[in-house]
């Protein structure tokens, strides 16, 4: 619909419009919005008093306090600004495998859905791609819900590929974005846990409110399609392993995969981060509606 993926039905869009991004901190925005800003401003929410200085707006003088203290005080209010939302999409080669699982397509769907939630709330969205090949995504903020189509078109030209070091890459990105805000990282996180924790840790250190969305393929999680003697090749590093896969090995593989996801989730929860896991063999709409809280969203 209008250049959006088929999953973006009017029903889903209506549901997404009812959602808001929830942050644990207040972040300054670039314009007026619906999120409380650390700045003082003109919202209805009282913040503090200060002595009147010439030039202050008479409308904010607290006349009641003046009557009690005979001193002029100006009422200060909380500023409400838009939220700077950063959505990082992992477009490394690993997102293309297993081919039948449509991991990368699911990651794009997730990113667009999150972007639409933000845009519909009047927030600014910056879409950033980690790795990948094909079209370039403009690393600038967009606002207004109509810009979702533009974002979808940019992502449509993107193809997964290449290899990057997660922690290093996120560090570079962190330097580039400078302003704090809400960060969504959509990835399979199939990398060394150390790299994942370092990368996510840098964002928390930079006072970013972070949500990690892990996308895994259904077949990938269960080890389906692999049987007998198999030489598995890492899609990014090219590392090769010869393994014999039977029922027993398949069980152990699945347990390992589940353990990896549990470790990432534990890390996120310990650090106060949001974590959501989407396996591609499930319905996307159901996932997005049910995982609202895990994704750091609110109705």
């Amino acid at each position, binding site marked *: 619909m209008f250049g959006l993926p088929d999953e973006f039905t009017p029903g889903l869009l209506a549901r997404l419009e009812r959602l808001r991004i929830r942050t644990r901190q207040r972040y300054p925005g670039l314009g007026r919005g619906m999120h409380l800003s650390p700045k003082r401003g003109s919202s209805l929410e009282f913040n503090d008093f200060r002595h009147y200085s010439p030039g202050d707006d008479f409308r904010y003088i607290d006349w009641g306090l003046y009557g009690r203290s005979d001193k002029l005080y100006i009422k200060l209010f909380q500023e409400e600004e838009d939220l700077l939302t950063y959505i990082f999409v992992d477009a490394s080669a*690993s*997102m293309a*495998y297993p081919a039948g699982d449509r991991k990368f397509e699911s990651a794009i769907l997730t990113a667009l859905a999150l972007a639409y939630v933000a845009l519909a709330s009047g927030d600014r969205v910056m879409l950033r791609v980690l790795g990948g090949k094909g079209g370039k995504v403009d690393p600038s903020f967009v606002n207004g819900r109509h810009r979702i189509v533009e974002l979808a078109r940019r992502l449509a030209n993107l193809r997964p590929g290449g290899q990057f070091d997660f922690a290093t890459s996120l560090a570079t990105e962190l330097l580039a974005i400078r302003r704090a805000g809400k960060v969504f990282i959509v990835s399979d996180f199939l990398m*060394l846990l150390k790299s994942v924790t370092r990368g996510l840790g840098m964002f928390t250190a930079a006072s970013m409110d972070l949500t990690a969305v892990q996308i895994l393929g259904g077949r990938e999680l269960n080890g389906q399609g692999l049987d007998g003697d198999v030489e*598995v*090749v890492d899609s990014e590093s090219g590392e090769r392993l010869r393994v014999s896969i039977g029922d027993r090995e398949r069980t*152990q593989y699945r347990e390992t995969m589940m353990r990896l996801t549990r470790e990432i989730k534990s890390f996120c929860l310990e650090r106060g981060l949001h974590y959501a896991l989407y396996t591609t063999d499930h319905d996307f709409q159901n996932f997005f509606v049910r995982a609202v809280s895990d994704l750091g969203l609110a109705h």
Partner: protein
Amino acid sequence: MGFLYPGALVFFALVPALVLAYLARERPSRVTVSSVLAFRALRGFRRERFGGWPRLDWMFFAEVFILSLVAFAMAGPFIWKKTAPLAVVIDNSAAMQALTAADKSRFDVAREKLDAALSAEDGGGEISVYVTAPQPRRVAPPFDTLTEARLALSRIKPTDAPNDQTTLENFLGNLASEARVAKVIFAGANALAAPVPERIHPIAVGDTVANAAIGSFSLRREVLGAEALHASLSIANFSPETRTLELVVTGDGKEIAHAKETLGARETATLEFPAIPPARIYEAKLAPDDALALDNVAYATAGSVKNVSILFISPTPADAAGLNSIPGVEVTAQSPDSYSPGDLGNFDLAIFEYATPKELPGVNTMLVMPPPGDPVFGLTVTPDSKARIAGWRTTDPLTDSVNFRLLNLRGGEYFGTHPWMSQVVGGDGGALVLKGERAAHRFVATGFNPFPYLGRRNLPMSVLTLNAISYLAGLGASSSGYRTGQPWLVPAGVERVILPSGRKIAAHPGTLFTAVSEQGVYELVGPGGAKTPRAVNLADLTESDLSNSPPLKVEAANSGSAAEPVMEKSSLSDYILAVIIALTALEALIVYRRRRIVEAAAP
């Protein structure tokens, strides 16, 4: 253990070929995955597995095993087994039909005794069952169990044919010498003369039985064209006392002759009936009844004295008209141009007038004034318009009752000396009548033509002609007829034979008919269903002599050696084949069930 076809072991080379093919097929498939992180833990499994890389599942091993078994079975493996093969010989000759004092036939007694003897055997080897008449033969492939052998014995019935004693002695001798036979049990009417070979265990059932028998029943036509037949029957009294025997001859069911004869102990007599009326089938019955009913009856048929059929080949077929006027003679005239040797199949004899065949005829033949230069007989011919008879053999059947002094030739031709035909009648210039035998057939050549003068105009010529035809047709000679157990050639035109028991057997002319174990009248069925009866009798007084069965003199090559166990090859192929089939079926079943499970699990 050994192999019948060790060369087939080369097929074991297929086993490594299969392993290589399997390894090629089972080499690891390369799969690109998002990350090998989770696979690293699996490497330990491969190292732990016996044999390591590659993965060989049980089905592969099962298939390799099956292939190995196939190659093994193709080599024909066998093991040596110690066995004691047994040969059981039961006398099924006509004499075994004789009833004993216990009102059982000799054959039944022999079978009971054999059954008892078999019960004493341990059944360690295969058992072969043989019968003796009409010729010794094995009734079926060797049996593995005593039960099968007993069943085979119970199905055997005595025949109407006699034993060929010499053949039976040789057969038993050979059997006793056979390395593969550990023991021979022979049950029969004849005892074995000492020394009895070690391996033969005789069971004699030949109790002395008084018996009277018809030996032979023959018919002959004394004179060409005569309707009445001359019957001769021989009878014998094989009892220790004098007996009066009564013989009744019936023709087509009507009594036509009757005789009584008193015979002393072991005395024989010939009864002659010179003029019995024509009938299709004759039956002679001897009274009183005795222990062996078979030889109290004999049959004869007029089919053996049928009309003489002649093929007359001549450029002047009208000459055959004179022959046709002779009673009992059927003449078919044919020109030399249309003649072929196959035409002789339906005729008793052939006459070539002014012509000769291009090959020696397959029937008795008369040549009348053959042309010179014929290559088959090589007759040297000298024509003489004034040829006349100068001499003849007085004792020859051709010249019997011929008044040569009144014989007027009116011209003819003389024959020169012939290599295998001798002169019967001669003239001044050479032989005028020659006769000889070649290839079991009779041949007569005349240097004059008797046919235009047949009848009262030239009586000596007529008598000479009748003599020649009688000689060529074999008339006047006594024939003992056909006997049980003796095969005969199927006559021309016969398509099938109906046995006395009613069984029908397809027959081919010119081949030996061997189903001749029954006494009685056989019907020879020709084209259009025409039936010709043929009588077959036991006609063997030696077989009928139940009081004096001569002992069999059996000599075995290893008569001194005791019965020894025989080493026998026992094939393993059947067992291996059964294992192959079972394994293949099991594998197929498991594969099928696996597929069903996968299909059921599929979304």
